[in-house]
């Protein structure tokens, strides 16, 4: 269908459209057709009104038209626009403007081969959805039992695991009695279910999606590919969670590690603790560190913001290679990671997948550049991530594990999720955030939970010699250990 819609659109756009005294002289578009299915679990119950098992289907995209008078139109594409584009032409023309900067339309170019499609997920979306319920219920059951795998079913093969997990889910929704009543003329079955108290601690969701994407231009650019995605979230007591997010289904080993991490940590965080006396440092776990990078670094590396004076950094800072992080730290955009959510053959503007260091050896090397401003900025366009991680930090001297980081930290907290990051001023880099469920680190070992306020200066934190990146199991993105220039207070 997408192929047909995209081809129809290309044919129509190439047919010499004209309105309002101008004609279409060039175009580019992206069209995506996708389907998804999601299943949720809330306080131990699958489904229900707010996490109802859900399926979605959608055809959408974006369009840019170049007009004979130099104006440009940009529009979102919905199903109706794709099927009858000429119906929208007048509106698109009316909204045309003359952009300050405009890139040439992408022409024919070779694109790298990247892995974006898992047939197993595609089958889940269009076929048997039972494994979605099973993986969630089975994981929840395992967590509710405190990770005791001997009390549930384990297996090594993918299919066997799904079946065993399905068996394991039964106690979650055990029916103890059914009655029938009638209200407003409707026949109603009322179910009384009883769940183990422990099961009510678990919430989560699994989402799978599959679709096809097409990017084309009037200058000859044409890319089409199939893509899938999977996100599995699990949380315990609203205290802590783990996520698997990829374009492929998780392996049994990955699921086992995720459950093990969550089991151990939720047991630790179930205990209320006190913030240790003395100076505290912080280990930001990968999700929190990535959120900090996204909030503070990305907008300040955006070349449009630099050109307009809205960024903390300037193009001169980039050209001079200013030191913005510890010398061993690199920060890159990578849209080629196999099955990464950020991965795709090209962006909607036809920029090929790639990997580029924005910061290397701690120094600014390259801004984030969209094609429109590449020429005035004097930098090549950068690949555009289509999902997380947007930025990936790395260091040859990264600590090997959270345990190693805690040992080096001595006293402080591990922060996995922060509240209110979106309220902080991205340009200043300073932050004051609540962490209701931080994990105490005392004498180099993880302890219980404590509510804290963490304040700091992210740009200084990145530069500080006491700062180190930390590798986490199953995470491409590292965490960040900050031992100075950060304040931790109990709340």
């Amino acid at each position, binding site marked *: 269908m997408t192929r047909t819609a995209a081809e129809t659109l290309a044919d129509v756009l190439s047919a010499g459209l004209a309105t309002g005294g101008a004609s279409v002289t060039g175009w580019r578009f992206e069209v995506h057709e996708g389907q998804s299915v999601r299943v949720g679990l809330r306080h131990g119950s*699958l489904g229900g009104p707010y996490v109802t098992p859900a399926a979605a289907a959608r055809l959408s995209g974006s369009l840019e038209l170049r007009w004979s008078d130099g104006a440009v139109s940009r529009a979102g594409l919905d199903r109706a626009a794709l099927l009858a584009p000429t119906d929208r032409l007048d509106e698109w023309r009316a909204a045309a403007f003359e952009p300050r900067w405009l890139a040439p339309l992408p022409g024919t170019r070779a694109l790298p081969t990247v892995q974006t499609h898992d047939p197993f997920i595609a089958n889940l979306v269009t076929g048997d959805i039972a494994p979605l319920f099973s993986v969630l219920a089975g994981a929840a059951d395992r967590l509710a039992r405190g990770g005791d795998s001997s009390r549930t079913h384990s297996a090594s093969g993918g299919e066997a695991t799904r079946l065993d997990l399905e068996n394991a889910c039964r106690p979650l929704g055990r029916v103890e009695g059914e009655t029938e009543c009638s209200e407003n003329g409707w026949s109603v079955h009322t179910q009384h279910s009883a769940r183990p108290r422990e099961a009510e601690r678990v919430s989560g969701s699994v989402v799978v999606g599959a679709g096809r994407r097409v990017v084309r231009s009037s200058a000859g650019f044409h890319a089409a590919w199939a893509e899938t995605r999977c996100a599995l979230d699990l949380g315990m007591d609203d205290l802590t969670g783990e996520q698997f997010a990829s374009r492929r289904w998780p392996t049994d080993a990955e699921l086992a590690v995720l459950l093990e991490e969550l089991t151990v940590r939720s047991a630790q965080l179930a205990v209320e603790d006190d913030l240790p006396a003395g100076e505290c440092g912080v280990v930001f776990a990968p999700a929190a560190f990535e959120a900090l990078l996204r909030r503070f670094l990305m907008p300040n590396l955006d070349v449009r913001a630099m050109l307009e004076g*809205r960024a903390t950094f300037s193009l001169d800072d980039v050209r001079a290679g200013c030191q913005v992080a510890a010398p061993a730290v690199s920060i890159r955009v990578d849209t080629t990671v196999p099955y990464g959510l950020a991965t795709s053959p090209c962006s909607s503007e036809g920029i090929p997948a790639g990997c580029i260091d924005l910061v290397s050896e701690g120094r600014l090397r390259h801004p984030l550049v969209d094609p429109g401003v590449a020429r005035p900025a004097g930098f090549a366009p950068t690949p555009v991530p289509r999902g997380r991680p947007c930025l990936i930090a790395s260091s040859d001297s990264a600590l090997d594990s959270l345990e190693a980081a805690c040992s080096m930290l001595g006293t402080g907290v591990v922060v996995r999720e922060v509240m209110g990051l979106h*309220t902080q001023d991205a340009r200043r880099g300073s932050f*004051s*955030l609540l962490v209701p469920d931080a994990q105490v680190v005392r004498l180099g070992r993880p302890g219980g939970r404590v509510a804290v306020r963490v304040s700091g200066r992210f740009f200084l934190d990145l530069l500080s010699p006491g700062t180190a990146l930390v590798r986490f199991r199953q995470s491409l993105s590292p965490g960040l250990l900050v031992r100075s220039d950060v304040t931790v207070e109990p709340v």
Partner: protein
Amino acid sequence: MDVLDLDHAVDAALELAGVGGAYLILRLQQVEERRLSMLDGVSDRARSTAWLGAGLHVILADGSLGFASTDDCAPDAIRAAVWQALRLAEAARVHGAERNHEVWRLASTGRRVLPTTYRRLHDTPIGDQVAALRDAQAALGTLPPGTSARTSHALVDERWRIVRSDGTDVTFATPRAVLRHDLTARLEGVPIRAGGNVSGADAMAVLAPERLAVAAARARLALRCARETAHAPAVQPGNYRFVVDHALAKGLAHEAIGHLCESDVSESILFRDGRLRRGDRLAADGVSVVDGPLAGNYADQPIGANGIERQTVSLITDGILTAGLGDLFSARRAGIRVSGACRAANYRDRPAPRMTNIRILARNPLPCPDGELEPEAVAALVRGAGLLDPRRPTIYLTGYRGGQAHPRRGDFLFAAGAAYALGSGAAPRQGATLSGLSESALLSVLAAFGTLRLDAIGTCSKDGSNVSGSGGSHGLLVLDADPRLTIGASTDMVAGWQG
């Protein structure tokens, strides 16, 4: 295509759900939107988007639920979506998923089309909007050298049709429009930003000359505050008597109270054993918190996402927690009445209880001039009323920058772009982040100044769904020092990142 033209699709959905013995809630959404922006007098962005889609819940006779959405509203596609939702509901039943029977209590309200009282997008020439953007930039007057002005304008013409198996079929609009200035400059090397907006239901509400003047006045005042606080000292961490503007008061109501009273958030600290703690004191005497639709407001929602009329609810009445935001599916379990407080940003969303326009009301507010208040005027008002803290600085916070709530513990925080230490004048301080606990935040309300200002707008995110929100309070709200209402550690600016 209009949602009212989709009778064939509606009939197809009802018929198939009926054959399956299921109850159906069908939500049809039609959106046309136009977004424009101008940077320093030159149009630099314009984007128009439209879509039509259907989201539907099916509820089997035993209460098992399934949901499906599609952007194809042809009868066959809608039938396919109903079939898909039935399949999911059946899978939910097989897997012992949670069941809910509340829909069976509903009675039909018949077929209704609420009158359209705003100017539709297709009646709004884009040329008029572009011209108004130029006027809006001109209304800013002369800005300090080096200041860049981006003016954005969005017009969203949104219509919903909610159809239920009980015969309810209601069509209504939730239009919104905003004009916003974003001013940026570099001050001694540090980027600063300031903004001001006006909002309403349509272009007339935001592009009329008097509204452009209001937006310009707000942006200019915000710029003044941003400039003089950029290099000011930080507020020392601690507890203070606070004066907050109406936008921060809205943030307080939204984060500290509103989210925690939503009937699906049973883990909220304002719930006990799954039921809202009605009767508990949460605010000072004379202080109320109200949520409800306001016609013409940016976040107006006359009908909830399940087709139930949205009611105005007093969550806190004279300091006492009296009601919650009750959605069909969870209100009874939470011990509150169904108030139609259910929203979806998009047909693809599974709706949940959400706020619309939330406001803090205080009995006997003190007089205060209408319009924008310079910090010195705020100081004079508070001083004149004898409300300055005699022991330590009274801190005025202005320039709401968003917030967040954590229901289980009741933590909340929100950020202010600028702060002032009030005394004989108003001494600039850097912006600050205020945090506290819901159970005590409003107990410290001492006084309010001025008439109600309910146009503080924002986007509220919950479970990945972003809906427009709004609210406010009196022009100023005074909160006494409280050990549980705290400004965090210094957020001193960073000057030393350069290598």
